[in-house]
């Protein structure tokens, strides 16, 4: 396989993963409450942070990493919805919401990384 064809395969993996991750996030938005805050946004971000943490601790081929890490998990989680929600919540509730969500996301990523390393033995 030429490197150009290999590169095309990586880009198509990112696009396909991005489509699937986005569709899954949209599905969560449809079934979970959106008021007063989007519960779907909170759930996808914490779950996605945990799973991505577990995945980066394990070795992966380029195309699999492009599909799962950059594509599926990158698109499953979202930063823009969090920052807009924070701005719309205002100066009292906004900071509480964003600090809690970011701390939960960081903790989920740390737990994911630890579990991934333990399972994969790749530290």
């Amino acid at each position, binding site marked *: 396989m030429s490197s150009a064809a290999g590169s095309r395969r990586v880009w198509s993996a990112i696009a396909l993963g991005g489509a699937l991750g986005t569709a899954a996030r949209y599905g969560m938005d449809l079934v979970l409450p959106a008021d007063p805050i989007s519960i779907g946004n909170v759930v996808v971000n914490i779950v996605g942070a945990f799973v991505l943490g577990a995945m980066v601790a394990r070795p992966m081929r380029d195309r699999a990493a492009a599909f799962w890490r*950059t594509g599926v*998990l990158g698109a499953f989680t979202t930063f823009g919805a969090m*920052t807009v929600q924070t701005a719309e919540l205002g100066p009292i509730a906004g900071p509480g919401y964003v600090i809690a969500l*970011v701390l939960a996301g960081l903790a989920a990523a740390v737990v994911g990384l630890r579990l991934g390393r333990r399972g994969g033995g790749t530290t």
Partner: protein
Amino acid sequence: MTTLLVVAAGGAVGAVIRAALSCRNHTWPYGTLAVNLLGSFALGITLRTIDHPLALIAISSGLLGGLTTFSTFVVEGVTRPRLQGGAYVVISVVAGVGCAALGLAVGSRLTA
């Protein structure tokens, strides 16, 4: 079904733009920071200016949801040296909320 396909297509485009802007060789994750700030601003404008329901969901949930990322952001934050990771997280969040507020304000002005 149409909505799901349109949202997924938007997400595919967003993910490809994010990947194109991300350069793994940088010591600081400029790519993720750039897409998250740009996406926050653009989402703020989009929510205030676009009325068409399908276009709105395609751009907000699809394109901009796929462009911005929370998982990569937090994993980058915890896998860097503590001080650098902490600075990256704080800068991303504070600037991101600022960009979102600015986008909402600009969007409101445009439709006023």
